[in-house]
């Protein structure tokens, strides 16, 4: 698994390298000492896994993730002691390691990846993934306040435009993503997502009921979410899409 180490301390990176030497499936393709270098390295090296320090000079680890174009590589955080960060992880069950890293804990974190979901597997052809659209199991990183989430694309019910940002509805949360709805739409799978109107993009898999609405439009009820209106033109396209 192509792996990138991101930490501002050389010794911390060395320590991780030494710990990872026992895991033959891990191939360390590079190191980065800050977010800026890391961003370039991720774009160039296309790692499947990233070890990420939260506190770094300049942008922190969260800011780096927010700035990355999805799909994201697998991310394992490494932090020394940061109440806020640890809280954010615990709430959302992101994977994190506390420094100094316990080798058993590291093995467990890697184990979870190995037996787990597919983007890393799909990433066998990283170029295709990069240029193409997001798969159902790809993840998007969202942060709001001191909480953060890796959201699986398939669990997104609805995306709503709010100026230059996009409100993402999933599970019980609706945080804002620092990306415009148009930019998001370009990355979404057209088989799964549908532009209902100027402000909203819906996930077709989350539709509960569809009823006729005024002047040939449609009213779509999203499971566990709001009702979304489709104009006649959109409704026409929607019908065509569904009949396919």
């Amino acid at each position: 698994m192509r792996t990138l180490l991101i930490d501002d301390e050389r010794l911390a990176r060395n320590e991780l390298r030494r710990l990872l030497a026992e895991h033959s499936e891990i191939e360390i393709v590079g190191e980065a000492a800050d977010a800026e270098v890391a961003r370039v390295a991720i774009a160039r090296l296309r790692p499947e896994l990233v070890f990420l320090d939260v506190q770094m000079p300049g942008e922190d680890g969260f800011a780096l993730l927010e700035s990355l174009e999805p799909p994201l590589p697998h991310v394992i955080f490494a932090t020394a002691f940061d109440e806020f960060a640890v809280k954010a992880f615990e709430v959302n069950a992101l994977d994190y390691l506390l420094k100094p890293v316990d080798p058993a804990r590291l093995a467990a974190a890697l184990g979870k990846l190995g037996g787990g979901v597919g983007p890393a597997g799909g990433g066998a052809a990283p170029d295709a993934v990069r240029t193409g659209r997001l798969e159902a199991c790809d993840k998007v990183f969202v942060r709001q306040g001191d909480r953060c989430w890796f959201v699986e694309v398939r669990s997104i019910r609805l995306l709503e435009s709010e100026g230059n940002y996009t409100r993402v509805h999933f599970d019980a949360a609706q945080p804002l993503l620092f990306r415009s709805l148009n930019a998001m739409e370009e990355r979404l799978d057209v088989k799964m997502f549908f532009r209902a109107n100027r402000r909203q993009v819906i996930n077709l898999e989350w539709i509960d009921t569809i009823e006729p609405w005024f002047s040939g439009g449609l009213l779509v009820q999203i499971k566990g979410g709001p009702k979304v209106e489709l104009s006649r033109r959109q409704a026409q396209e929607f019908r065509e899409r569904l009949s396919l």
Partner: protein
Amino acid sequence: MPDQASPSSELPLPRHTRLYVACQAAGWGLWTLVYIGLVFLQGEVRVNGEVISREPLAKDIAFIVVINSLGLLLTHGYRAFLRRRGWVRLPWLALLPRILGAVVVLAVAWTALVWPIQHFLADKAKLTVEVQPATVVIYSVFQGSVFMFVWSALYFGYHIFERYRRSEVERWQLQSTVKESELRALKSQINPHFIFNSLNSLRALIDENPARARAAVTQLANLLRYSLKSGQLETVPLEDELRVVDDYLALEQVRHEDRLRVRLTVSPEAAAAAVPPMLLQTLVENAVKYGIAPRREGGEIALDAACVGGELHLQVRNPGPLARRSGSTGMGLRNAAQRLRLLYGGRARLELREEPLGVVVAEIRLPMTTAPLNIPATESSP
């Protein structure tokens, strides 16, 4: 009872309502019984100890029950009115005239309701003295006013007491939290983030440079020991504090490597001066946290200690604009300033300012004293 203006500061409605119903029932019920008892006694006493006919008693009881029921209804309406208008939250001076007015209005209403019934039930034959109706009305209004006033006094008395008690509890809670956080915050400790990062670097260092790793273990031990002991001491000689600052900076250099450069300038007389423990350390920690850690290129921490006109001047310089600190809570420095106030009153000063050329200076000025004690905690280990 739906009550739109129910003040949020009141207790939850169900308990409140239950208490109100209980009080109304008990109060009026008890008074009715006492009243009946009085009439009964009066009936017996009336003719020199001789028990006479109790025939009008049934009528009297009916009358008493009726007036008290009317009183109950009136006060119930009164309460609804009070709650809607939020009188409970009014201050004393605004409340008192309103209560007096309401009491008179209620008494008049009560009399107006009672009068026809009283007239209807009255046993003309029993009346020995002809009483002027006006006198009866005035008497009745006066009696009603006394009743309503007592009712109001109980009602508002309860609420005012409740409010006082609740604010007292809140004040007490607030005080204890403030004191607690004050104590906890003022006790300067070594940042746990630093400790764990150091341990992490140390582990990497064990293979890479065992001699340096051994030194780092000693430095970390010194720092922790000093930090634990410092709580018990008011002041320490500056040289002790400096030894720990040295250890601290050496550990930070392990982490930040060539990103952190250090320059120390300490005059001999300054070294003997007494300083509060962990105070200089706090400034240096801040300087690394805000001046070195966020800068990719790192920088220099410069520490100067000198005696100037009977004062000890400590200066810690780090690169970077002061504005960068806006992201911080300013906790460390605020606590340090608070400690200085507690220890020296107005005779000590802590200042944070930006010098030209992007250098931030934290400066402490203390009255010069020599330390009473040397703490063994900082003796270097063999």
